[in-house]
């Protein structure tokens, strides 16, 4: 069972987490075309590389971001999403 480091709760087995999808910014709904909006709603980036993903530690209710190399299936870093402070980066495993 893979291990993932929650920035708050530490290293835990993957079963303690929920995958929350790709991290991406919502485009400006006023400016965007219908086609581009549909692309945002229905399509995701999955090409090989280090992807930014939302993960949720269910027991503590903590949302955080994990960067994962989806080719090697290895977590690279995890940190909290934070608007003001700099992210608390921790080695992912």
């Amino acid at each position: 069972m893979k291990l993932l480091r929650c920035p708050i709760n530490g290293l835990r087995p993957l079963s303690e987490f929920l995958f929350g999808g790709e991290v991406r910014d919502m485009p400006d709904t006023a400016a965007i075309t219908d086609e581009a909006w549909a692309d945002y709603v229905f399509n995701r980036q999955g090409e090989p590389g280090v992807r930014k993903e939302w993960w949720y530690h269910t027991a503590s209710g903590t949302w955080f971001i994990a960067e994962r190399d989806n080719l090697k299936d290895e977590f690279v870093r995890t940190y909290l999403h934070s608007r003001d402070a700099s992210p608390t980066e921790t080695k992912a495993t």
Partner: protein
Amino acid sequence: MFKPQFSPLHDAIQHEHPYAKWCDVQDMPVFLHLINPAKELELAKILALADASFLPRIVLKGPGAAAYLQSLGIPIPEGLLKVAPLKNGGLIARTGGSEFFLESGPVGWPSQAAADGLRSPSYKEGVYPVLRQDASLVISGSRAGEMFRHISSYDFIGEQHGDLVFTPIAGVTCSVLRTTLKGRPVFRLWTDGTYGTYIWHTLLEVAKELDGGAVGTAVFFPELASKDNQP
């Protein structure tokens, strides 16, 4: 006015121990003893579970929570998941950047001011109280760690720190704390009250396999025994 209120584990305990002694603690029936008190003390050395749901609890959240607590004379733990004791046997845990979990001791909050302030905190100061109705247990004994090995993937034997641990136990979200009660090393466990009966039964099933069992609350909170009266 008498407002009967019940621990989430009340039905389960009453069902298994129809003749157990209880007393009224802050309008809630609390089972002081479930079996012979001498036997309970023996069990407590091996593996014992007791219901501690009766202790008043609250969570305060919001940008003003830390300052408000300090104004009530309540110490704030510095780091996330850190726990500090309160006078009169309670505790405070920092469960978020501006979120605090407080549990009162068996005889009350640290001071009258704290008790008043926690009962109705001022909303204007950016302080939001969250109602808590946890099912809570005290677990003691040399085989307590072994019990956790049956139901949790967290290494409660290897990890010896005194921080709050949020993790699933038997498939249900719980928070667990390694601490001491009157010098005796114990685990405290809290879970959503609606899962209380399930957690109680599941832990008890494992405990019995390890020669443990359920004990009354007086084993860990002897100060309650002096209020020995039936309703």
